[in-house]
């Protein structure tokens, strides 16, 4: 068994596992299980990145997706009451049609991949160059912080804005006094009584 076969086998496993977990994400009923399936996708994808010698991105994917984004999903699920949703019908009426269109799209992608995509001009970042920089992380750092520093800064601004926006959106608004139609009878009576009392104390207000 030479190393090429080995790598291909590893790829086959990782890719199949990715697809399987992805299918689970959209098939499972329980959102928590979906989220865990998504974690599975991310892990196997990280394996694929390691195959591609993009170690930094592999680690970054796990840290950001598994460590932050999906945890955030789980948090949200735990904060919200999901009982009602879970019992409801899970799939759309348009599901069969959508699956057909999705299959067609996938076929088209495959056809395009095999038939028309030709590998383009080779860039300057050969494996030798990457090794010269001291590895994948250093090479990525060189590209990111030298050539694409401004986009990187803009991305950080985007994140800041997103954080602020998320806080503003999710912040619990101060509870507004409810209108009388939403009150229980007892509450309503009590409030009426309070109003009557203050009116007696304050003769300035016309009755």
């Amino acid at each position: 068994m030479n190393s090429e076969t080995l790598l291909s086998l590893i790829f086959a496993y990782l890719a199949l596992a990715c697809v399987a977990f992805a299918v689970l994400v959209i098939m499972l009923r329980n959102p928590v299980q979906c989220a865990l399936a998504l974690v599975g996708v991310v892990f196997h994808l990280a394996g694929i990145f390691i195959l591609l010698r993009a170690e930094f991105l592999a680690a970054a994917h796990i840290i950001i997706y598994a460590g932050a984004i999906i945890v955030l999903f789980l948090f949200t699920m735990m904060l919200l009451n999901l009982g009602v949703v879970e019992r409801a019908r899970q799939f759309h009426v348009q599901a069969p049609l959508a699956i057909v269109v999705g299959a067609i799209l996938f076929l088209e992608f495959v056809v395009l991949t095999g038939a028309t995509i030709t590998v383009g001009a080779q860039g300057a970042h050969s494996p030798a160059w990457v090794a010269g920089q001291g590895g994948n992380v250093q090479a990525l750092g060189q590209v990111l912080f030298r050539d694409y520093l401004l986009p990187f800064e803009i991305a950080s601004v985007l994140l800041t804005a997103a954080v602020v926006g998320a806080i503003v959106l999710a912040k619990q608004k101060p509870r507004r006094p409810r209108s009388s139609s939403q009150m229980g009878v007892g509450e309503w009576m009590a409030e009426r009584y309070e109003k009557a009392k203050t009116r007696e104390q304050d003769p300035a207000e016309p009755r």
Partner: protein
Amino acid sequence: MIIPALEYYLVLGAALFIIGLLGVLVRRNLLIVFMSIELILLGANVTFVGFAVALNNMLGQAFVIFSLTVAAAEAAVGLAIIVALSRHRDTLNVDEIDTLKG
């Protein structure tokens, strides 16, 4: 150089993309719809990295960093919207959120 060939990675990316797309189209739970969007982004990332390695161009990998940023921002804002929405409408069912109806 790249084992297996680039096409396999592209097909994998396409598969993840399509599965994510189907999730968006098919599921009624808003949370799962969001997860499906993450799947779409992951599929794009595979494609980026695949091309980056095949073409010896680091830009593909750098772009994945930006894609991750966007995913994180999207998740934060999206989940905040979901929280606000479920407080407001008491539902996460996409079918019931149709105020945009003409």
